[in-house]
């Protein structure tokens, strides 16, 4: 009996140790941005808050207006991204200064939403776009928990709800058009293009008027890099962008899980150990004590 128990603990220990040791060795390789990934560059020093981008996004994506009654009159005035609003302009303030900030999907190089999505409804598509395919979505909303930017929105009032988020107007590419928001911006506060070009443009602006900006280019390294980049006159905290490190969001979870489930070895070993022990101790299963 002692032997049996020792054997069991050894087997379990070996499986656990194997899993633990595998963790650093199997540290996952993050997905990186490609130079021609499609993205946006938003420059908060240029935005005048005209919301042309919000309206054109709505039209380009066939979304209904988000009408709220204010003082007895209807306004198309979304306060945040929602189930039918894929981009929105919000006000920010750091106490002394204020301005505007645009929100939409950041199109992470290594997106958390795609990592958690059970059947890949959210996935990386051509040109790095984080795409949504409703036919693979069960509406579990894990993407909302996972996204560090709180971007994916759920259609709470719909009988057949979907996840709504910016897909960089990929349905317009065939017609030779890019993201609608960038197309209509009167001040080039938001421009679209390959990420490498946007990054170069961002650094050109930083170098040209360094005193106008603070904090560098958000999205260059944050969260493993995003295709949508931000420039700000006041750093990024006031703009509501989270202080992410260089690691992509899925790195921690996937390293731990990959470590444990590497090649499915540990589960198989563990199952074998459990089954053998259960067979050896089947007398105990009948209520007998050794």
């Amino acid at each position, binding site marked *: 009996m002692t032997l049996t128990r020792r054997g069991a603990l050894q087997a379990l220990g070996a499986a656990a140790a194997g899993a633990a040791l595998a963790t650093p060795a199997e540290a996952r390789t993050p997905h990186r941005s490609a130079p021609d990934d499609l993205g946006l560059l938003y420059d908060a020093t240029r935005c005048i808050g005209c919301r042309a981008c919000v309206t054109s996004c709505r039209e380009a994506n066939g979304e209904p207006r988000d009408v709220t009654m204010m003082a007895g009159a209807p306004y198309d005035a979304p306060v945040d991204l929602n189930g039918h609003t894929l981009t929105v302009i919000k006000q920010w303030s750091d106490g002394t200064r204020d301005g505007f900030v645009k929100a939409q999907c950041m199109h992470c190089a290594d997106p958390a939403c795609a990592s958690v999505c*059970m059947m890949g409804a959210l996935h990386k598509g051509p040109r790095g776009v984080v795409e949504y395919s409703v036919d693979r979505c*069960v509406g579990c909303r894990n993407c909302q*928990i996972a996204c*560090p930017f709180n971007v994916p929105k*759920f259609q709470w009032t719909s009988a057949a709800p979907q996840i709504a988020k910016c897909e960089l107007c990929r349905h317009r590419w065939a017609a030779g058009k890019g993201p609608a928001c960038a197309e209509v911006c009167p001040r080039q506060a938001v421009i679209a293009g390959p990420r490498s070009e946007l990054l170069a443009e961002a650094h050109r602006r930083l170098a040209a008027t360094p005193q106008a900006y603070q904090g560098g280019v958000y999205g260059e390294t944050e969260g493993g890099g995003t295709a949508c980049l931000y420039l700000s006159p006041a750093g990024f905290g006031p703009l509501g962008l989270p202080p992410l490190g260089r690691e992509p969001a899925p790195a921690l979870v996937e390293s*731990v*899980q990959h470590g444990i489930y590497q090649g499915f070895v540990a589960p198989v070993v563990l199952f074998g150990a459990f089954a053998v022990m259960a067979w050896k101790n089947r007398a105990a*299963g009948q209520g007998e*004590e050794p």
Partner: protein
Amino acid sequence: MTARATPVQGKLLTPGVKLLLVLWALGTAAGLYRFTQGLGAATAMNDGYPWGIWIAVDVVIGTGLASGGYVLAFLVFILNRGRYHPLVRPALLTSLLGYAVAGVGVAFDLGRYWTMWRIPVSPGLWNHTSVLLEVALCMMAYVLVLFLELSPAWLEGLAAGRDPARARLAARWLPRAQKALPILVGAGLLLPTMHQSSLGALMMMAGLKLHPLWHTGFLPLYFLLTAFIMGFGVIYFESIFSSLAFGRPLEHRLLARLGRWVGVVILVFLVARFAVLGLEGKLGLTVSAGRLGFFFWAEVLILLAAAARFLGLGQEGRPDRALQAALLAMLGGTLYRLDVFLVAYDPGNGWIYFPSLAEILVTLGLIATETVVYVLLVRRFPILAGISPAGQPTVPVGLREGVTP
């Protein structure tokens, strides 16, 4: 020989069961409201808190409390403690029902619930990095395994029934079920080890949205340990509840001996929690986290109190102390899991969440249904260890140890 499990018999529609049926009806009405009016109308969930109590309570806490079968299978088959055998069947049954409730809770929660069936049958679509997928598949498989692990009880129940054809069929399948048991036990141990730990991994991805006192790479370990703690608590609670409700002998000496294991597991959890916080340099947060600090210390103190009571059960194991210990362990594990999934989760932007009446009614309705089905099954099938029939030559081990004369 074993302390033979026997059906409890007796009336089904007791006043208690009638009350539970009222809760079931209210839950069903709330459920109808959810399916006709949508999640937005029926629940308080929102884009900031996309997971409410149907996930945090029905699934995460519910399956934690349904870990009794897992814990006992571990004790009996891996640590070779046959004396706990009389507790196995009731524990497996509560596990089966608890996981079934989780499955139904998920159906209420999923926005596109009608596509749910595709998850297990679409291996081509499986995203191998999805922790939730692993949890979903493991839990589905585990419900099946639990049902099969209980097949001796179902078959014995049929064999003792009045229908001769069914009795013959059951008699033929019983030995086969016994033979398959090691494989089933293996699966019944592996699957919860995987998905209970993965429940913790789910919230690792929340990153900055989960308070640093709770966010760590050790979440899977903590969820595995709380599964053990809550599973133990439920075994105690269930034994004491069954003995009160059905007038069964209480296996109090058995429970007293088990207490050492439970106390040690709780202490391991607490030591690991503080050691990891120390390593991560977050110990200061335990006093500076304000409202959340209160929740952290509540977890710690409740579990500490539970451990002290479990370790102090002694030889006789006074049932009142055992019940206190069990309730504290269940409460401590429940609070920890609730904190990780809701209390310590803050998406920012001023989002708030408190469950709606419909959410609460659905959850209560599910718990009520589970309890009614449990009562029904233990009255009709041999689940609970019975009193040995007169003149039996050998005194069963479980009875020798456990029965109050």
